[in-house]
């Protein structure tokens, strides 16, 4: 099963232009707010109509601007989990699930009751959505979606409406549900950890375009683009100028670094993750000026600069201790970004 999209939709101040292929498994769409990731889901579901392009779900063309095909959302059978779950407030948990089942009323209630039990909603099935917890609301929404056996699953920021402690719990429940679903699953998130834990592949989106796509480990250890580095949490990024086949000048930091990987002409930025700096001397080591520190729950972040007037960087360390006076940048940890 597969999903193929190639769509364009223009707004006065924003253009969505996405080309994306997805196979079975979970693909995370990672991007900042306003990058068009939710809009992409809405186009696939048929809630929004692209200006032009083509969308193919499991071999069925649901949208093709050249052939004038635009199947309404009702005919696409996609499972769309909304950020706020979008439960029907005037119906009970059981009513919400039963309302999407076809057939006679008794049959609908029987099917709905069965899936409600399976999702652990037995005790709340006669309550209204606002009378149950956030986790139960999400389970109700999932049950309501899965009872129709959708072609693909799309989850829009599935955990953003939950408290931190519930989030972790629901994420594990979701993992079980997703493992059970044999088809394409798209998860929209701006949280890199969530993206990493839930997905097999990650697509990074930026300003309405697909920035890059790849296996999650590849995207995290070896991001190729500026946006991929940013979205995977790289805090230290500088403009870069190539100075040799294995050397690059970090413009914002005022230092020249040796690299392990060859520097191509397309490299415009470099990045170093804050936990990759090494205190003390070594290759690529420079004296630093420490500007301050921030205590995180289990680590400490030093704010420093390699030169006066240069941009401040972050260095994260697990251990307590006094401020380092020199840091080295391991050449194999430098991210070369296009």
């Amino acid at each position: 099963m597969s999903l193929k999209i190639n769509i364009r939709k223009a707004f006065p101040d924003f253009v969505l232009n996405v080309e994306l292929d997805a196979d079975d498994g979970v693909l995370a769409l990672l991007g900042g707010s306003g990058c068009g990731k939710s809009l992409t889901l809405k186009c696939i579901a048929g809630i929004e109509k692209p200006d032009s392009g083509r969308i193919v779900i499991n071999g069925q063309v649901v949208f093709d601007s050249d052939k004038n095909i635009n199947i309404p959302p009702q005919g696409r059978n996609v499972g769309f989990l909304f950020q706020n779950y979008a439960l029907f407030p005037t119906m009970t948990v059981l009513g919400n699930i039963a309302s999407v089942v076809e057939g006679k009323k008794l049959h609908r209630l029987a099917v709905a009751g069965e899936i409600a039990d399976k999702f652990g909603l037995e005790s709340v099935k006669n309550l209204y959505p606002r009378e149950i917890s956030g986790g139960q609301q999400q389970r109700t929404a999932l049950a309501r979606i899965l009872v129709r056996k959708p072609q693909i699953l799309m989850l829009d920021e599935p955990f953003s409406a939950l408290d931190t402690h519930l989030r972790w719990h629901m994420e594990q429940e979701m993992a079980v549900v997703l493992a059970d679903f044999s088809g394409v699953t798209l998860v929209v998130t701006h949280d890199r950890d969530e993206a990493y834990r839930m997905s097999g592949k990650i697509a990074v989106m930026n300003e309405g375009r697909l920035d890059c796509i790849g296996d999650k480990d590849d995207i995290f250890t070896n991001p190729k683009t500026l946006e991929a580095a940013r979205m995977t949490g790289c805090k230290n990024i500088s403009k870069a100028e190539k100075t040799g086949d294995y050397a690059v000048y970090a413009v914002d930091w005022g230092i020249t670094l040796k690299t392990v990987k060859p520097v191509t002409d397309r490299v415009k930025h470099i990045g170093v993750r804050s936990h990759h700096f090494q205190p003390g001397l070594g290759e690529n080591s420079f004296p630093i000026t420490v500007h301050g520190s921030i205590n995180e729950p289990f680590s400490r972040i030093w704010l420093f600069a390699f030169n006066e007037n240069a941009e401040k960087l972050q260095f994260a360390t697990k251990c307590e201790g006094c401020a380092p006076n020199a840091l080295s940048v391991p050449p194999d940890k430098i991210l070369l970004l296009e």
Partner: protein
Amino acid sequence: MDFRPFVISIQVAVTATVFTFFLGLFAANFVYKMKRGKGIIDTLFTLPMILPPTVAGFFLLTTFGRQGFVGSFLESVFDIRIVFTPTGAVIASIFVAFPLMYRTARGAFEQIDQNVIYAAQTLGFSRHKIFWTLKVPMAKSGILAGAVLAFARALGEFGATMMLAGNIPGRTQTMAIAVFSAVNTGNIQLAYTWVAILTAMSFAMIMLMNFWASPRHRRRKNVPKN
């Protein structure tokens, strides 16, 4: 005392409210879903609310009068007359009460979380099913409030009714018109009676509407958990 104005008023207002209810509901849903030209249609639908009653009456007379295009059609084809009949009073009431129903219902529709509608679409709900099983129940208190407002407005209608249906005792003379006639003929006692009845009814209806619109009414038996 002649109670016919009371009976006529209730008959006219109830009939007019039934029509206004559905017309206003569908108009509200239509405008709510409109993408282009919303402003002009909304203005047209709201206009009867602020037009002087005589202007509204004049429009209705020129449309439903014997020379009017609807009036002449109805008379020649169905032998139905509108002017100086209870039907005319109903039409005048529908005309002036419609904007209240339309605007209140539209406001209630606009409060609905759009994602709920989108979710229903992706879950295969037809337009018809979305309207009757989701939008209407979700906008219930607003729709009921609109219906009460429309009924109250229809009950108090005077100007356009005078022009279209006239003031025929026992036929088109409603309570509001009876007050006018009583004052005109110097029967202050009668005027007081109708004024008292109308004021009490209006008061009760506003109370009812506020009750339906209050959050306390919407809360159900169970206290929400957090």
